[in-house]
């Protein structure tokens, strides 16, 4: 028995240490591993106590498979609903454990058992139904709008009272009817609670449900007499409670107010010009859309402020491309993140991290707010309420007193939101009307890409004007110019990416070039060969991952007839799959593999590392053909050079 207690204590310490390691992004991964390992030890301990039961192992395996399938398949953007779903299952499991215990214990069991088991059942069921409905709302399978019934609050209060009364009755008379009634009452409670929660309140509710799933586990541990469940469950309960608190504070609303939902009423912002900026009387230049690129070029410090609109527009990749372009020119780029931006705590951080933005650039509200006054340009991407200066002045509105990001304090603000409608709070955003603010309404992904292209084009002009400088080697320059010239003349372009693109990590550079070509009205298709890359679908995966639209891809059999009337085929790190010999080895031998008929295009531009044959062996006669221009070298270097030359040539042509 002592051994078991010792192991249980070690497991608890393991979980604690795991959470402790989550205090820094560098060690967090190990924290998670430690948590998983502790769980494995806990499972072994449980089987050691009960003896190994075949059916239990089978069901464990089923659960594990389901968990792996869901855990692997979900996309990062679906994380809020995934967490809600798992959370619901955890709560449901605790309820079931309590129910099992009740079914096994006789009526003679002490009242403490019945009390804790009934509470675990109620809280667990509530967590289950509430989380599942929240997940359905987040997945948009159920309307995200808050549904408020007549007397919603009264119904909930009544249900809670009935639930408590049923628990009391169960203590007096232990019949199976009461636990069933308790389960039903709390199930309805969970549904009604989640029903009136709207999208922007989700971070609070998910945190609360997370906490409740821990509490359910803790209380069920009391019922079945297992300190491990209680200790670890309490830990989760606290974690969820702290998050709930943080979220509520960030929204400036009490938990009760969030839970009771509110109807969105359009509220005009208080009268304001740039005069009523909080706390500083600095003069700011009036700016308009035409100044945008100049502002960016002159800026030294730029802060992005993302909101849920960025997630909706799936603009995080475009944001990263713009951020990279700005950083390449030596500008300081950071991201200011409001705690309740998004649908769960830390939502924006996950999306930006997934887009490949380093966590050191992410700043929470507390850290970024003092920095805004010395920021040259703030770029708002799909955020409204969290930057509304009216929060400080608009008494009597839902956002009055809510801590916001002081984006308005920057020298200039660029707002890339879908429209000028107020955010979730219904309060008009007074920032939009200030003189140092440029508003660009529309899909954030497109807006940001447009800014990136304009910025790069302007940069190209400057480069063209530059007389001396770190000029690339002459032959490099000539090759880049030749390819840029061919691209400028082309109308229909087919891009052929291969494994070399992945090796050179040139996909981002390729996407930039594709975006620019498209913004110049050219038709761009990405031709895919099933064998490009190291695993099936490798190259398309890499490109889709950085935001290349699926409809741009065309596969082998479809795209081959199209080469003949294509102006330019641009090969990036692909050899064997473009080799004409592959289709016709001569001497009447059968074709070893189908290849892309690249050589049929009017011009072929090759950006490969060198002219050596691919892994299959035969040299590629394509390289020697008349209409082929090759630019040997690392594609991550050659493609940006081509892009730069292309933009220079376009800019010179315009003037």
């Amino acid at each position, binding site marked *: 028995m002592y051994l078991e207690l010792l192991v249980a204590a070690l497991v608890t310490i393991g979980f604690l240490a795991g959470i402790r390691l989550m205090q820094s992004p560098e060690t967090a991964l190990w924290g998670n591993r430690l948590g998983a390992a502790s769980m494995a030890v806990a499972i072994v301990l449980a089987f050691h106590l009960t003896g190994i039961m075949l059916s239990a192992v089978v069901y464990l395996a089923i659960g594990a498979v389901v968990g792996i399938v869901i855990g692997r398949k979900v996309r990062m953007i679906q994380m809020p609903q995934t967490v809600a779903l798992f959370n619901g299952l955890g709560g449901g499991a605790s309820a079931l454990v309590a129910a099992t215990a009740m079914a096994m214990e006789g009526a003679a069991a002490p009242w403490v058992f019945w009390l804790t088991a009934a509470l675990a059942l109620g809280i667990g069921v509530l967590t289950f139904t509430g989380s599942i409905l929240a997940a359905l709302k987040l997945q948009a399978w159920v309307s995200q709008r808050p549904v408020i019934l007549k007397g919603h609050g009264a119904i909930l209060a009544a249900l809670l009272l009935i639930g408590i009364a049923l628990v009391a009755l169960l203590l007096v008379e232990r019949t199976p009817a009461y636990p069933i009634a308790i389960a039903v009452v709390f199930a309805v409670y969970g549904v009604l609670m989640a029903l009136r929660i709207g999208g922007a309140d989700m971070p609070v509710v998910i945190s609360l449900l997370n906490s409740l799933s821990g509490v359910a586990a803790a209380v069920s541990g009391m019922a079945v007499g297992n300190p491990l469940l209680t200790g670890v*469950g309490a830990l989760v309960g606290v974690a969820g409670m702290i998050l709930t608190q*943080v979220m509520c504070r960030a929204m400036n609303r009490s938990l009760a107010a969030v839970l009771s939902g509110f109807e969105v009423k359009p509220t005009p912002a208080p009268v304001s010009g740039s005069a009523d900026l909080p706390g500083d009387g600095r003069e700011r230049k009036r700016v308009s859309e035409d100044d945008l690129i100049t502002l960016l070029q002159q800026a030294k410090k730029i802060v992005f402020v993302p909101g849920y609109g960025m997630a909706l527009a799936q603009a995080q990749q475009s944001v990263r491309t713009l951020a990279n372009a700005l950083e390449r020119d030596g500008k300081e780029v950071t991201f200011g993140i409001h705690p309740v931006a998004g649908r769960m705590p*830390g939502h924006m951080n996950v999306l930006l991290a997934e887009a490949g933005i380093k966590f050191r650039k992410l700043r929470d509200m507390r850290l970024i707010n003092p920095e805004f006054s010395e920021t040259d340009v703030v770029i708002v991407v799909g955020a409204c309420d969290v930057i509304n200066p009216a929060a400080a002045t608009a008494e009597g509105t839902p956002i009055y007193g809510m801590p916001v990001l002081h984006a308005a304090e920057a020298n200039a603000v660029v707002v890339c939101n879908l429209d000028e409608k107020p955010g979730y709070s219904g309060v008009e955003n007074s920032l939009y009307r200030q003189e140092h603010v440029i508003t660009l309404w529309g899909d954030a992904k497109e807006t940001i890409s447009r800014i990136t292209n304009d910025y790069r084009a302007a940069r190209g002009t400057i480069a063209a004007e530059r007389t001396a400088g770190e000029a690339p080697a002459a032959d490099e320059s000539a090759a880049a110019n030749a390819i840029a010239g061919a691209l400028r003349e082309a109308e229909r372009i087919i891009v052929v990416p291969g494994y070399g693109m992945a090796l050179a990590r040139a996909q981002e550079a390729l996407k930039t070039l594709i975006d620019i070509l498209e913004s110049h009205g050219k038709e761009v298709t990405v031709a895919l060969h099933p064998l490009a890359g190291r695993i099936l679908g490798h190259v398309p995966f890499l490109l889709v991952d950085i935001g290349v639209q699926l409809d741009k891809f065309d596969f082998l059999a479809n795209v081959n007839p199209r080469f003949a009337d294509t102006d330019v085929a641009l090969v990036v790190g692909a050899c064997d799959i473009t080799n004409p010999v592959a289709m016709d080895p001569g001497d009447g031998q059968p074709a070893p593999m189908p290849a892309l008929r690249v050589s049929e295009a009017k011009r072929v531009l090759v950006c490969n590392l060198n002219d050596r044959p691919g892994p299959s062996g035969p040299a590629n006669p394509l390289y020697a053909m008349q209409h082929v221009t090759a630019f040997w070298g690392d594609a991550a270097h050659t493609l940006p050079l081509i892009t730069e030359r292309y933009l220079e040539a376009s800019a010179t042509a315009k003037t």
Partner: protein
Amino acid sequence: MNPDFIMILTVFVLAIFVGFEVITKIPPILHTPLMSGSNAISGITLVGAIVAAGAGGGVIATVLGLLALIFATTNVVGGFLVTHRMLKKFKK
């Protein structure tokens, strides 16, 4: 009230205090992984499910116990997996 229950209540209170100390220090940037990670940990109820499923009660108890097993395992495995995937994205 039996001594076992008092012991468990002590564990409960202690865990709250220790948990509070550790969790308040987690930076907001990691709040989503914290939530999904702690969510996976709340699947500890799996231990209760194994004990319940193996205790040899009646048909109802066994069915409920096994269902609890599936739920809890999905929670644990899926939870740790998505947390892992998310944390991998947090580069320097």
